[in-house]
């Protein structure tokens, strides 16, 4: 399958350069008098004014950059594909090429995925929508319910604009209005969908009805949710409290869902509702829940619960729950409502290893027993926040990377490389380090110096 990447961002004037050569026949390999600036990326469009000839603006999609060679594919404008060097003004002089983002918002990208006949990708392509941190994304809800005959859809962030594991350090998605109650900021009803590297702040939604960040409705085979930061949901969103990653459909027993290397924190309900961070309870297939860090879940109401990860209510389900951290659960009512891990039914299958729960969870729901007396001897239980040792839990500068004294360091299990589980919250390849995996979304210690090259060294 071909992969087509399109950029998503608000910069509609990234750079303007003049082509000085082109080879090939759609796609064209174009060179410029001056190379476009480094903000220009694969997936951007290149537009050229052809008013002197066809009367149109010609749009090309930038599909590759190799040194000074820019590969572009004609998409629309004029009657047929035309080389960029043939686009001239009324005096025959070469027209400039203007680089812009392909889409300005995530919703409009989704609307194009929903369309039957876009000319920007092939009908069976793997389509990648790549966010750029030109400005904050404010989309209230994006409903991926159709992908036509596309092979897969991925919503990701350009590598230059990815977060570094802390909020607001890369492309930020901060909705400014409600999604609709139980609707979710991202709602997914398609197979083969990946959402990764997003930084979703729910901080503007305290008075809005948004109570979920990512909702999977059940047709979600081979869906992957990875390397995301989701945080700061407060207030009272309505009759149902926050459930940040929530599967609400069953899927099929052969379907696989993967949720890994995410950080979810500061989820605080204020009026008589329960809270959960990852809820795959109705899922009837395979759920891989690996290396997530969940911190500070607060419910409201004497009968309400704060739950980190809940799974396994369907007998056919197989839940693989490994290397996760759940810490700081607060409840108003009985202590049994503080639940780090909850395997809901006894008949389902759970493969658990090396999970951590802190001293705020009830023992029944700790990483060892998970509501079913699993007696997982690899679990770390009863740990304090000081033992977990996050770098910063200070409001406004939260940094849930592991600090130097953490009990999570090299306390995990190697999960291989499937679906990129080895890539931690800020891009460190755990496998490339040769050290034992850490628990949670961050790989600390030796791995730190090899995965994400230092921009410069701090002099302390």
């Amino acid at each position, binding site marked *: 399958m071909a992969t087509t990447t399109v950029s998503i961002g608000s910069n509609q004037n990234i750079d303007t350069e003049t082509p000085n050569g082109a080879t090939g026949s759609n796609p064209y390999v174009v060179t410029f008098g001056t190379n476009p600036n480094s903000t220009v990326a694969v997936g951007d469009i290149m537009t050229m004014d052809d008013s002197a000839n066809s009367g149109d603006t010609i749009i090309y999609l930038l599909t590759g950059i190799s040194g000074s060679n820019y590969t572009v594919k004609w998409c629309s404008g004029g009657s047929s594909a035309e080389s960029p060097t043939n686009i001239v003004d009324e005096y025959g002089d070469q027209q400039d090429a203007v680089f812009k983002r392909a889409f300005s918002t995530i919703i409009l990208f989704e609307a194009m995925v929903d369309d039957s006949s876009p000319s920007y990708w092939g009908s069976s392509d793997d389509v990648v929508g790549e966010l750029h941190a030109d*400005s904050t994304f404010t989309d209230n809800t994006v409903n991926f319910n159709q992908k036509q005959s596309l092979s897969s859809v991925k919503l990701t962030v350009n590598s230059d604009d990815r977060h570094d594991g802390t909020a607001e350090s890369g492309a930020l998605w901060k909705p400014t209005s409600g999604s609709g109650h*139980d609707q979710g900021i991202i709602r997914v009803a398609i197979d083969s969908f990946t959402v990764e590297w997003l930084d979703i702040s729910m901080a503007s939604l305290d008075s809005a009805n948004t109570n979920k960040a990512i909702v999977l409705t059940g047709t979600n085979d081979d869906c992957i949710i990875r390397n995301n930061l989701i945080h700061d949901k407060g207030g009272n969103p309505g009759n149902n409290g926050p459930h940040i990653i929530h599967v609400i459909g069953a899927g099929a027993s052969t379907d696989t869902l993967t949720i890994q290397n995410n950080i979810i924190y500061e989820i605080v309900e204020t009026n008589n509702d329960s809270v959960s961070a990852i809820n795959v309870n109705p899922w009837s297939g395979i759920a891989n829940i690996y290396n997530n860090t969940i911190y500070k879940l607060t419910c409201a109401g004497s009968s309400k619960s704060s739950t980190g990860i809940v799974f396994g209510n369907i007998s056919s389900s197989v839940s693989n729950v490994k290397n996760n951290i759940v810490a700081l659960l607060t409840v108003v009512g009985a202590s049994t409502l503080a639940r780090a891990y909850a395997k809901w039914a006894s008949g389902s299958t759970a493969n658990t290893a090396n999970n951590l729960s802190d001293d705020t969870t009830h023992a029944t729901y700790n990483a060892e027993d998970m509501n079913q007396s699993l007696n997982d001897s690899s679990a770390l239980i009863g740990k304090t926040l000081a033992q977990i040792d996050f770098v910063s839990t*200070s409001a406004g500068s939260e940094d849930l990377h592991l600090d130097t004294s953490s009990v999570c360091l090299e306390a995990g299990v190697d999960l291989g490389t499937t679906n990129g589980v080895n890539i931690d919250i800020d891009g460190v390849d755990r496998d490339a380090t040769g050290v034992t995996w850490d628990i949670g979304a961050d790989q600390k210690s030796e791995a730190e110096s090899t995965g994400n090259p230092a921009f410069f060294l701090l002099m302390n």
Partner: protein
Amino acid sequence: MEVIVKVNDGPVASSYKDGDIVQAFTLDEIYLHHAQQKCNVKNFGFEIDGFRTPDPLLLDFLEKTRTYKFERLNSNDVKRTNLITNQEDIINTTPNESGERINVYQYVSRRIKNKNHLIFRSNGLEYWYGKTKNDIDIDSVWNGIETYSGNLKSQHTNFPFSDIEKRYFAAINTSGRSYVGDSFTRVELSGDTVHVRQQIALENPPEEIPEDYAPIVVAKRRWFVPYWDLTTELDSSVDDLRNRNHMCDCRKAMEEREHIDILTFDKVTEGIISI
């Protein structure tokens, strides 16, 4: 208020329909998108020591759009100032009464590996800003931008839709009216009036909502613009609007905009769908 409208029906019943308002923006949201672009970290360089250059445009923007300022005081202590309340406290490796702590050396060490970092240094000590405010005074932000750059707020009144979007969708703006007697002036629309226009049409929920309740989507959008009946108001023909090789931008200056009730309609009220 600006809306972007689907042109032509999507391929299946659950797709967007012809005329659907896909997304809507307040003028303040539009101003903020442009302000964020002007003050994007990539527009600013580094000092010789690798910390971000304390450009007055960037610092003014951060002061006005962030909730906290953090200033390192020594090897362990950080002063945190709430820029909304001016309340100050000291945080360090010892948890405070709220359990908050920070290892500032580790924190700063990690941040500055990111080439888009926003860590500044003054007199050998780092400072930075945290957490974007929910309620940003956009006029104040643009005052700063106009003071420290050549950009004018008045030239940034349109959402930066892409050329692809202007071919596959229709960009339209509209206004409200403020009446004095029988005469009116056109005014910007804000908040809920705008955002309701981009709502999904969801079935009314039951009175008792179960925890695993899945709202039923009746239509991908509840509001629409019947542009095919509004060619005069939009100054654009149906053929042009539906031609994907033609860019259509129906946005007008404020004094020429049609009233919101002339352009936008609720499918439920119009009897097109029921929830």
